[in-house]
């Protein structure tokens, strides 16, 4: 089971914190909404991903399991 970042688009308010905390996989579009690089998150990046998820002020960012 690997993990991937997912966004609850209804919650997301373009605070942009996630891109600051996890620039390896998250950038922002011109309106400030996250653009996720869907590549698998290697174990050494797992902590960064977890921090971005935890710090999202509206809890819109999730780590979701993916089979395989």
């Amino acid at each position, binding site marked *: 089971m690997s993990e991937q970042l997912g966004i609850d*688009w*209804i919650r997301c308010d373009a605070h942009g914190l996630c891109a600051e905390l996890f620039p390896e996989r998250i950038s922002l579009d011109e*309106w400030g*909404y996250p*653009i996720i690089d869907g590549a698998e998150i290697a174990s050494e990046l797992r902590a960064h991903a977890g921090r971005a998820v935890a710090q999202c002020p509206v809890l819109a960012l999730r780590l979701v399991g993916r089979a395989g």
Partner: protein
Amino acid sequence: MTAATRPDATTLPRLLGGMGTEVDLRPLERHLAHHGDLPIVVDPGRPDQALLDEVRASGLGGRGGAMFPASRKVDAVLSQRGRPVVVINGAEGEPPSRKDHVLMRGAPHLIIDGAVVCAALVGAREATIALEQSARREHRALEEALRERAAWGHDDGIDIHLETVPDGFVVGEERSLIDALNGGPGKPTHAPPRPFEKGLGGAPTHVQNAETAAQLALIARHGAGWFRSLGTDQEPGSALVTLSGAVARPGVYEIPIGASLHDLLVAAGGLAAPVQAYLIGGYIGTWISAREAEGLVLSNAALRPLGASLGARAIVALPETACGVAETARVAGYMADQSAGQCGPCVLGLDAIAGGMERIAHGDGSQLADIQRWLGLVAGRGECRHPDGAAKLVASALTVFEDEIARHVHARKCTGDGTSVLPIPRDSRTGRRA
């Protein structure tokens, strides 16, 4: 008991059979004389396995647009704990589509039969048929049909309710529909949970589109083999199409999936004027040039290589006298207005795209490259597929109407005579900033 003769499997119409200007199937007597009795009994709490096998064998795909296998929706509901309920989705918010309305108005008993079949499949005790507020005639037809069944002592074995939901494009999306029925604003909710997990009143909910329900009512009567004798192997059965634009007789037609566009046009009395392009799949569909549409086959398999799909099968023939750029700009504006307003990329992206298209329609091509980028930024970045659909439509317009765009931008000319072909509901905001 009424025993109608089993209709010839390869004869159309099926769903629209018995409906016409003079004869209609609103009276229960006529409905039963035409279609025969529904040979199933709902046993609440006990899903009808034999019926489900038949539905699975039929290969029926959801006729709301996604063509998702009807039997898999049943499987999903049956995988859940709790007492399931049924919702029939009669909300047809797509302006160029009228097929569900025509069916509900002309053959309300077939829709109700479909609700009964949907209940039997999951062992539900109740079914709700949902219609948008403005569908007053359809509401009346279904209400009268329910009254008539009660007066005849025709026991369906379940409770059937009619419910009204707000008008709008996204209300027809099943999570929005459930949200509206649950007293919410009728907007997509974050998934999971999906309606099969937690739907109407929190119950596992078996949702099927109105036309799909009617198809199920016929499969329950005539079987999978009968159903599959029309259509293609991958996409079996017949389907309703709403044809409008430059055709002699616009309206709702029933075709075998895999029929040619040409045959459909012939059935509609031919073209009323020379046509430059066809919109296939409504406002979340794709423009296809008249040249590319020669020999076009109406199945998802045939449309896929063109980047198109049947969707809810709204087809519009755009006459040469109309401007594809202006038409697309208007629809893009409408689709932006119809965003549920919940997801940033949809709200901001569709608005930007619509504004850019409006500029092009007025001869200003400065945002053409931006539009291309925005199209990439809205697809797949919302809770529902509304932005994806709108983006697909605009993207196809940029290709199909490339010459017309160049004419607007470089020569400040428009080949259109100002005719508007694509319908936009009156209450929608118009006249966007340009």
